[in-house]
């Protein structure tokens, strides 16, 4: 659950307002990061293109080039489209928040930015970036046999093979708000319960949890052991997970605690699966477009306000067994073409954050 790889990161703050810029820079420096700043989007983009940044904190209202334009430019730039972006803005209206997330922003923080929340979101964003970098690096390594051989000799065991399977990403919605609303011991207890329930639903349906990321997880169905109906198994697991979370929520409600909600993304297709890591601690993992898509779908549950989203391949394999609802095509960052998205109706719709 806890990741120890979080060293200082190099962050860029883009904000035209001097008070905001100084304050944000200060907060981030106090968290141990190395921070540079830009007074508008155009300068920010130039600095990013020079390279070396791990994350961008982006204001929306800026002269010369505003935040929306920066997000569009980043999405169109091969070298920068995976850079995590946290939008920090006091823009009014949920529509603006959704627009930012749709343009590829990792997260949205309202100003004035709460320091604890900021720290949590930066940690989560950097962790996701680390994972994506790791995946890219693995893809690169799988590409040449010489490199793979070299790795084996140096103690890594990498036996990548192409498999067809289903990948699931899941995380707790508004986890940081939940953390702030209760003592740390309660959060740890909650996370333990959460993982126990989720593991149960996933392994009960033949899946394997292979990554725990902060308050979320990644699971694979169909690898390392083949599974006849991996798409169906993953969606059944997802439905069970939602049911279990609802049960947990009503228990918590009785104890006067805030409910908890999760979002789940499921994608089916080909991927490269194998062991990665040292001989002492090998992790089975999968990489490829399918994995990326499942992660994007999971993130999109926030925008679509649905608890479970699946891709077209998963839907096709479900046939008539489990009902789905077509939500149309969505353009995801890192995807050349729009992707068809389907919701799996279940008992717990993800509530509208505006309360509507």
């Amino acid at each position, binding site marked *: 659950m806890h990741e120890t790889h979080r060293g200082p990161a190099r962050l860029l703050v883009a904000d*035209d*307002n*001097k*008070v*905001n810029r*100084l*304050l944000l820079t*200060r*907060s981030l420096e*106090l968290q141990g990061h190395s921070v540079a700043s830009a007074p508008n989007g155009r300068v920010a983009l130039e600095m990013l293109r020079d390279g070396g940044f791990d994350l961008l904190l982006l204001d929306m*209202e800026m002269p010369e080039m505003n935040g929306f334009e920066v997000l569009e430019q980043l999405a169109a730039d091969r070298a920068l489209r995976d850079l995590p972006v946290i939008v920090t803005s*006091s*823009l*009014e209206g949920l529509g603006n928040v959704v627009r930012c997330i749709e343009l590829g922003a990792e997260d949205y923080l309202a*100003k*004035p930015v709460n*320091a604890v929340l900021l720290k949590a979101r930066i940690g989560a964003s950097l962790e996701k970036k680390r994972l994506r970098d790791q995946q890219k690096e693995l893809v690169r390594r799988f590409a040449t046999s010489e490199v793979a051989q070299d790795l084996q000799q140096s103690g890594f065991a990498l036996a990548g093979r192409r498999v067809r399977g289903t990948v699931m990403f899941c995380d707790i919605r508004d986890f940081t708000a939940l953390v702030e609303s209760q003592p740390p011991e309660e959060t740890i207890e909650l996370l333990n319960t959460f993982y126990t329930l989720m593991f149960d639903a996933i392994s009960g349906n033949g899946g394997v949890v292979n990554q725990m990321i902060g308050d979320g997880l990644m699971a694979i169905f169909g690898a390392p052991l083949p599974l006849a109906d991996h798409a169906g198994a993953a969606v059944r697991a997802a439905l069970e997970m939602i049911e279990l979370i609802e049960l947990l929520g009503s228990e918590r409600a009785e104890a006067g605690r805030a409910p908890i909600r999760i979002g789940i993304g499921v994608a089916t297709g080909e991927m490269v699966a194998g062991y990665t890591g040292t001989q002492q601690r090998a992790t089975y993992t999968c990489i490829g477009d399918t994995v990326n898509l499942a992660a994007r779908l999971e993130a999109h549950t926030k925008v679509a306000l649905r608890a479970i989203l699946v891709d077209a391949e998963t839907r096709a394999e479900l046939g008539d067994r489990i009902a789905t609802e077509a939500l149309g095509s969505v353009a995801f960052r890192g995807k050349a073409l729009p992707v068809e998205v389907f919701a799996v109706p279940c008992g717990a719709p993800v509530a509208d954050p505006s309360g509507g």
Partner: protein
Amino acid sequence: MATAIDPIAFAELQASAGADFVRELIDTFLEEAPPMLAELREALAGARAEPFRRAAHSLKSNASTFGAATLAAMARDLELQGFAAATPAALAALAQQYAAAAAELKALRDA
């Protein structure tokens, strides 16, 4: 009686950013805010809606940073309602509220 700055919000700012840094930040705000107020007046006179909204937005954002809740609320009204709410009287009231917030911030800075 100090009422323009919410003491809890200000204390939180000091706790998270450090008291010395907050002193510098107050100086920056006292330099930056008068041009924002001027921009509001000029944008209103010149009927330039977007610069008006943006100046109101910036002022709202900075006011809430320091816990100047009333000032932030007034600036927010101007941001959301634009010229509909922007009478000369409303801008005068805003300037007055800024003066009160600035005086309290100076006192806090020199405390």
